[in-house]
């Protein structure tokens, strides 16, 4: 079983891993009722911005607090740095209320990456729920930038309702491509929704991929991931080929604060991306 590799960018000795770098909010765009995408630009223009798909930053709103947020932009164009944030509390709410030109702090990137190259020559299925599409989007961009190296590429996306979707226009564009199979479902249909209704797992049995040659990348609420991996395994996907991005409370992102432990793993430095066999046992146990 190959585990995704970790990049050691900030975490090299001599650098204070808790020290944020100043960034300016370049633009902010509303995705839906509670989610915004923030474009950030380093104040020290020559700083390195390279990242791998699946990595996250600690985003710091001065005086309010700091939270882990995945990078949602294109890793092949690192100069354009995006974070897509759902406003659920003090810090995320504070970040989503910022105005262009305002300053915030950033540490990172942290964590390991989606193992995109592992899927070369096989089918690839992305399964996302809600805001979970944000951490997957860089992997999708990466794959699209070298599309011919993959077999069939499927994106399955579930949202609570049509209005809760993120990246709706982009999904629309992707759906128009001949080399991508994009399927979207909502838990609850409202008047103007004519698409599929039901949780995202209902899309798995008939989706167009060959389960014996498929790598799956899954991100969404923990319950959604639990049911999704079950459906994928039922369909015949090998558990070694299933990857998920885990989430726990996190204060430092470098293994000091202890908050993000999940069984023997630290989500921050061993993850956030795990192969199913590494986390299966804990995923199935309550309150780990």
């Amino acid at each position, binding site marked *: 079983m190959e585990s995704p590799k*970790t990049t*050691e960018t*900030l*975490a*090299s*000795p*001599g650098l*204070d*891993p*808790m*020290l*944020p770098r*100043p960034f*300016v909010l370049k633009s902010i765009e509303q995705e839906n009722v509670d989610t915004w995408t923030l474009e950030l630009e380093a*104040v*020290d223009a020559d700083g390195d911005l390279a990242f791998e798909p699946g990595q996250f930053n600690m985003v710091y709103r*001065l*005086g*309010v*607090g*700091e939270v882990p947020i995945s990078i949602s932009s294109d890793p092949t164009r690192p100069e354009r740095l995006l974070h897509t944030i759902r406003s*659920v*509390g003090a810090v995320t709410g504070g970040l989503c209320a910022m105005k262009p*030109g*305002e*300053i915030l*702090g950033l540490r990172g990137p942290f964590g390991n990456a989606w193992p995109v190259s592992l899927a070369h020559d096989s089918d690839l299925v992305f399964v996302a729920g809600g805001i979970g599409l944000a951490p997957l989007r860089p992997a999708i961009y990466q794959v699209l930038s070298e599309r011919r190296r993959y077999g069939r590429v499927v994106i399955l996306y579930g949202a609570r309702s049509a209005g809760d979707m993120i990246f709706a226009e982009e999904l629309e564009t992707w759906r128009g491509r001949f080399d991508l199979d994009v399927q979207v479902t909502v838990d609850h249909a409202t008047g103007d929704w004519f698409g599929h209704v039901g949780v995202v797992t209902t899309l798995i049995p008939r989706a167009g991929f060959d389960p014996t040659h498929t790598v799956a990348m899954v991100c969404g609420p923990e319950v959604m991931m639990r049911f999704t991996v079950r459906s994928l395994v039922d369909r015949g996907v090998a558990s070694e080929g299933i990857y998920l991005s885990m*989430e*726990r*409370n996190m*204060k*430092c992102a*470098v*293994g*000091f*604060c*202890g*908050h993000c*432990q999940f*069984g*023997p793993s*630290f989500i921050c*430095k061993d993850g956030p991306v795990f192969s199913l066999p590494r986390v299966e046992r804990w995923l199935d*146990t*309550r*309150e*780990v």
Partner: protein
Amino acid sequence: METLDRSGIDALLTALRERGFTVLGPTVRDRAIVYDELRSTADLPVGVTDEQAAGSYRLTHRGDDALFGYTVGPHSWKRWLHPPLVRLLRITPEEGGQGFTADSSDPGARRWAFVGVRACELAAIGIQDRVFLDGPAVDPVYDARRRGVFVVAVNCAQAGGTCFCASMDAGPRAREGFDLALTEVVDDDRHYFLVEDGSPEGREVLAALPSRLATADEVKTADRILESAASSMGRSLEMDGLPEILGRGYDSPRWEKVATRCLSCTNCTMVCPTCFCSTVEDVNDLADGAAERWRRWDSCFTTEFSYLHGGSVRTSVSSRYRQWLTHKLGTWIEQFGSPGCVGCGRCITWCPVGIDLTEEAAALRESDRALHA
């Protein structure tokens, strides 16, 4: 091995101070032996000993003038290396909103000499070294504080009622990681210390003290004392196979049982010399618009510890006790190469309801045997 008279300890404290160290060591305060600055050996708990049991701690008189005739109290050296509350950053926005400057200096750092460090505590410092220094990232607060420390270890001449360092291969004799190590001998007619040096700086300090070469008899006496300490441990813990037992015991009914007693008070994690978890709090300086980030000890026994929006992951006390014990004695090994426990017994002594991890581990082993026999 050298020998130092009782008065040589005063000379040691003076020598350390003259070399620029702030000297910290055990002293009696509020009916407990805590660590604080030492001005002279008179500040040490002279002639005092401690009686420890699950949920109880009491100081009494020994009937002699021993300087180190007790074991460990509620404090540990992590108070200085990984302080309970420390400012990580002070961020000041720049004029015109063009960024900010960040000050991450730690004014609390000193060159400390820790006097009276027990073998288990040395092992605990070694464990925190691996957490904070061995990467991938290095904690600058811990690093700066740790680097200059001069360690005067004291080998334990007696084991405490809740001690089990021998089970954890962490004592009672200090084997490495010290600059000087003392073994105290209080005979009917003599009171002296055997001194071993463990570093070039330790050798230098020792050279300046009124010591002489130890006799074979003195060395033998000290060995005998340490052997008897090793065989009089108040507790024991069988580590063999325990990580695997804990790993498959997540559904054991024992967790519910201990949860009926555990108050989730966090005492065990606060007194533990290896527990390292922390949280970060944000503070605003209204006067000049600066923002500060402070790191504070945290505990896996609180509900907030595992908070995600929508609720905490570990809402039940049983899941929190399980997280603590499986981490200490199981998953820690996978993470850092050793258990997160050195057998100091603090968590047993300072638990208000006397929960004993050695007893819990033994019970989990027992029910595992019943299930998997």
